[in-house]
Structure formats: C-alpha cells, structure tokens
C-alpha cells in the first residue's frame, strides 16, 4: 500500500513537471507534446485508467 501511494506521488510529480514545461516552453509543438504526455498521467491520478 505504501509503495502504491509513493507511485501515485511520483505520477503527480511527473504531471506537475509536464505542466511546468508547458508554461516554460516557447514552441507550440513542444507544448502539444507535453500535453499528450500529460494525459495518461492525469488518467492514472484520477484512477480512470
């Protein structure tokens, strides 16, 4: 159970990194890429997939 919680925290951390990258990026292509990477992390955080 503790390991599962740690993994969810890791997922939240990576998701926040993606959002940070979107905010810092200057190219729209990179922003789209970060959003696409973000989606599965969000779905796991929300316990949908």
């Amino acid at each position: 159970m503790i390991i599962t919680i740690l993994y969810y925290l890791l997922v939240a951390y990576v998701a926040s990194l993606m959002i940070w990258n979107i905010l810092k990026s200057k190219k729209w292509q990179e922003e789209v890429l970060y959003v696409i990477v973000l989606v599965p992390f969000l779905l796991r955080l929300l316990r949908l997939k």
Partner: protein
Amino acid sequence: MNRGRQMLRKILILALGLVLAFFSGLSFYRSRHLKEPVVLGPGVTQVKKLSEYFPAIRGSTNDANVYVMAGAKPGGSILILGASHPEEPAGRLTTWILTENAAVEQGRLFVLNSANRSGTTVTRLGGAYPADYTIRTAWGEQKFRTGDRWSNPLDQWPDPEVYIHYPTRQELAYMDIRNLNRTWPGRPNGTLTEKTCYALTQLIKEEKVDIVIDLHEAELQYPVISTIVAHQKGQDLAALASMMISAEEFNIGMENSPKALRGLSHREIGDNTGAISLLFETPEPFLDATRGRTDARLLLEGKDEFVVRAGKHGLLYEKIDDKGWPIDIRVGRHCSTIIQVLDLWSQDHADKAVVMKNVPKYNEVVQKGVGAFLRDPAKAAPKTVYYE
C-alpha cells in the same frame, strides 16, 4: 509573440488536453462500470460472495459472485472458473450458459463467471483492444466487457521487477503477479490477485470440491491449444474425455500439467487441495501476435488473414482457414468438454456424481449460437438478476 498571446495559446493547448483526458476518461470509466446481467437459471439455489471464504477481499473488485447449483440428491462438487483470463471470452460465455440454463439433479456445481473480476475491467494497455463486445440474441443484444489477461493496475500497482511466486519462490515474469493463472494457490497477505486465488483455494477446501475446471483460450501460435491440461490426479479422466469427445464431436487433446511450472491452476490446485484440476483450451486467433486489426469482430468471429498466412508458413499449432474460429464453436467446445467430464466422473463415482441437465452440447451451440442460451434480464424477475 507577446506574453499575453503566448499564455492564451498555452491555455488553449492545455484545455485541448483536458478535453482529450475527459472524453477518454469517460470512455474508460463507462467500460469499467459496464453492468453485465446474469439471469439466474432454474438450477441456481444460492448466490454467495467469494469473500464468504476469505473475508479480506470483501468489498474489493474481486469479491465475485459464486453461483451455487445444488441438486436434490447428494453427490460430488464441481467448481467451474470463467474469466481467469477475461480476454478469453469463450470461457466466460460458457459460465453464462451454465448459470442461466443448467439444472443440477445430483451433487453441487459452483460457477464463477468472473474469477478475476478486476481483469474484466481493463483492456490490454497499448493493445488497442475493443472495450466490449456484443452477443446477439432473439430478444436483443447483450454487451460484455472484453477484459485483459491481467488484473487492472488500478486495483494492484505497481508490479515488482521480478514476480516471486508464493510459496515456491519460482521467479516469474513481473506482470504475472497480476495473472490469476500464475498466483495459485494464493497468499492471504499478498496482492489482490494472490488473495483472490487464496479465497478460491479456501472455497475448494471448505466445499470439498472434487474437480476444478478452469476455462481458457489460447493463441494458435501456442502449443497448448485445443486440449485439456490435467494434473496427474486427473490424467485418466482427462484422457478418457479427450478420446470420447474426439471420437464423437471434435478433436481435443490431453496434456499433463508440468510439475516445474508454478502458479497455474492445473498444477497448484491439484497439489494444494483435494481436488482434481483441469484446464480447457480452445483456439482464439484474437490472441495471436501476428493478428491484424484487434477488434470485436476478430474476438467473436476469429477470422484473420494474417493468422491464416502464419498457418501457411507452418507457424501454428492449430488449423485455421477463412472460416476462422467463431465464438459459437469455441463455447460449444467448452460446453461439451464440461458435459463429458461430468458424465465420466459420475459414471466412476456414483456417490460423488454430479448430474447436470439443460446445458447445450457442441452441435447445439454451433447450430443455434451462444445468444440462444442467454436470458433477457428485462423479462426476468428483478430478484433473479445479478450483475458481474
């Protein structure tokens, strides 16, 4: 570009991502929570929960329904497992036919339509599986979750680097810690999948089950196909059933359960309980690595030109042609094999006989289709409708 326009662009791109997450999430949620009705047939005398045999799984995804059919005359006990691997639908549909049609005259039949219910709530990650499939009936259509080979990571995550089987300590593939057919006999303080096997083992022991039948399907590129895999305690029974069925209905082989391969039902149930353990395999081209489009049509019709081509190159362990391996044939094989095993067992063990009626044999399922044996939940009394 000024900062304001840049920020607007970022917000728009993020919003698009959220819309994508919303609709995909909605699709996954609906699929996970699809209700599959089971209309209790004339033989069902009791519906128990698996947690009655091991309370630690109460309220979990895998606290499955256990359909009990008890005959008026005492006899033996048989347990039939569907959805050990949920993406092998012939096994699961066979359990539906049993729970909705079978009548037991002697002995007891225990049926689980969703042995690994968690595995029915997810499809293969990255596999582009259809979320569900539909069986046509005379009264309409019934939808079933496609499922996967492994428990849903939402119920059990993360996987270890190496899965060490309990209690033998054999090292197995990491994801197989979520594989119900690699975690027998189970562990009371283990993962959800291990606890589920432990609960099933307790059921087998407490109910003094004589035979456990685990229903599966296999890819045509896998050598263990169209066969009964038997623990050594069930060798004679499986061999005789194989001979009788091959002579009268269709070709089916018999294989011995390997003693060195741990965690499988046909090995561990036989080793750790008083029951004989048998595992049935039918051909399912949907599972072949060389398949084409992985859709519900392939799942149900079993037609695939690439698998046929693999056969022409001698890469398969079962025949296939343009007719494929339709679901009616696969379910019919399971039905007939169950009937034959029960008949042979009952002939040799009069005091432990299990006499079952109203279950169609191979020819009848092929002729009428699986849908002919599914009952309409809308026309059934509400108290006779359960959900998987």
